[in-house]
């Protein structure tokens, strides 16, 4: 078996044995499933509120939720992928590379005729399979819940959209796992290796969108996109920060894929930005020099 496959298998085995990783995986799967139920309960209540408002003669406006897609209940999952999924992926990525440096197994591995790109790509492939499995499990159960709420199995079109959302989630999470791998390779301390990607994630998820749209940090945790400020300063700044706000691009593309009535337009540009991020991160990790991989930790 070649280096790539051995490394991939080894990574999957290690993740299976890591109890702390299990906590995050279980929380992620649980929350994605719970999000469907939360979405359904909330939608039922809001429909009740609207009916009451109409019965009291307080409005003649149409029901903003009339005819929403059954996938509407999945919109909270977008946030959980961003919050729990991204942090889980970062932890997995950091552990993958720090583990080798901490236990000095990397010295043993690299004493063999092993190409570093094959080793790193193998580790990445192992993580990518784990992430795909987690996404696959959580979204399969969600599909089942949507079908139960809907009273019938989801059609091919909606099922395709759930799969597309799963693929997009996989792209985002694998990118964050790569960020974790990178800091795991480059940091001198394990704490720094974990913390730096968290800070980068915070900057991408909260600071960049705020600079470009004046959205408040907490409002960015709501699946409904914040109303962006426009004109003057914001038109100029959002042209630069918008493409870099990867989490907002993910929210936008996912909302379009899941047919959220609050988001319109094409998802193509957002998907391309996320794919470009994945490719760039892969290249940056794979070109890590051999001596960097072998450097010890200071703690």
């Amino acid at each position, binding site marked *: 078996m070649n280096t790539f496959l051995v490394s991939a298998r080894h990574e999957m085995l290690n993740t299976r044995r890591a109890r*702390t990783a299990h906590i995050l995986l279980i929380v992620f799967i649980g929350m994605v499933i719970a999000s469907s139920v939360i979405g359904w309960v909330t939608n039922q209540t809001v429909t009740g509120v609207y009916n009451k408002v109409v019965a009291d003669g307080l409005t003649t406006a149409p029901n903003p939720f009339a005819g929403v897609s059954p996938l509407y209940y999945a919109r909270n999952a977008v946030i959980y992928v961003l919050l729990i999924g991204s942090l889980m992926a970062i932890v997995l990525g950091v552990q993958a590379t720090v583990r080798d440096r901490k236990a000095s197994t990397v010295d043993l591995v690299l004493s063999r005729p092993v190409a570093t790109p094959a080793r790193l790509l193998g580790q990445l492939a192992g993580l990518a399979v784990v992430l795909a499995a987690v996404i696959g499990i959580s979204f399969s159960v969600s599909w089942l819940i949507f079908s139960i709420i809907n009273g019938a199995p989801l059609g091919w079109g909606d099922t395709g959209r759930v799969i597309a959302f799963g693929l997009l989630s996989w792209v985002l999470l694998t990118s964050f796992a790569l960020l974790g791998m990178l800091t795991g390779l480059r940091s001198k*301390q394990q704490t720094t290796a974990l913390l730096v990607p968290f800070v980068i994630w915070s900057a991408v998820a909260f600071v960049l969108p705020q600079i470009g749209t004046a959205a*408040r940090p907490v409002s960015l945790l709501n699946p409904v996109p914040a109303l962006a400020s426009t004109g003057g*300063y914001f038109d100029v700044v959002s042209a630069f920060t918008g493409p870099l706000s990867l989490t907002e691009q993910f929210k936008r593309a996912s909302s379009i894929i899941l047919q959220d009535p609050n988001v319109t337009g094409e998802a193509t540009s957002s998907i391309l930005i996320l794919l470009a991020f994945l490719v760039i991160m892969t290249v940056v990790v794979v070109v890590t020099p051999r001596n960097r991989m072998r450097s010890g930790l200071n703690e």
Partner: protein
Amino acid sequence: MSSTWVIASKELLDLRRDRLFAVLIGFLAIATLISVGVAAAAFRTELDAYNLYVQQLAASGSTTPPAEPQLFPLQLLRGGVEYLEILGALFAIVLGYGTVAKEKYRGTLQLLLSRPVGRFAIPAGKVLGLAVVWLVVVAVLTLLTTLAILVIGNAPLQGIDLVRILIAAVVAWVYLVFWSSLAIGITALSPRLSTGLIVSIVVWLAFVLIIPQIGDTMDPDNQVPGGLFATLQIQKPDELKVLANFAAFDGIRNGLEVSSITKHFERLSFAFLGIKDKYNQLPLGLVWADMWGYAITLAAATLASVTFAVGATTRRNLQRKIS
């Protein structure tokens, strides 16, 4: 000098030399300042749009312009409070974890335990050290944001505004001490150091991000951009009357929110700063009358967290095998 204060002084010295600490606090300060600047820019954009609209109205012969947008300077701090509640808590966890982890990694723990220090001196010294650090950090952030309101926001502040800012700073300090103490306790109890950090982060994820997010998501008014009731053109009194019919749902939603210490911090800060419209320009006594319950729970939770840190950081737990 008591051994508790010696350990606290050592913490202060360690953190003064810690580059990671400087980077984290620098990041928090920049994010907070950016939030004030962005809020001020958003207000100016709104004002420009208003002036343009008034000009157009005047040109068309209308003599009844709509009400001019009004700037309440302390409302510029909303983003900063939210950064403290999310990132501040995360960084507080990292500092709490670091204060225990470094002793194990550096091997200084054995040296420390070989000295005649009291049962509670080490954890109490560490909590005290971090409390002093957060006091300094909050004081610096408060000063910076106050200056930012005056300079970037170009907004005047009254004496009462400074008192409100000071109260919010005290609330922030108590909140940050809560998270640092919790992380100390969890790290001391964890057999593996990395487990301590990850478990603390999972707790942060649950109580800072997930639970408040679920509460926000379940809010009927958050279902449509701009607000459900605003979209349906429903006035506030009618909104309250309608929502009274869904008291059970709202009770569950609010129960979820208040189970998170973060919401207590947020509601207290928003009330005293007048960020929440209901409390804007309200005398402090009336705000306190409405908010004292949240102040008590935040203080009690912090006291419990400090007790947990001091109780869990025993010699036996600290001397567990390092892995």
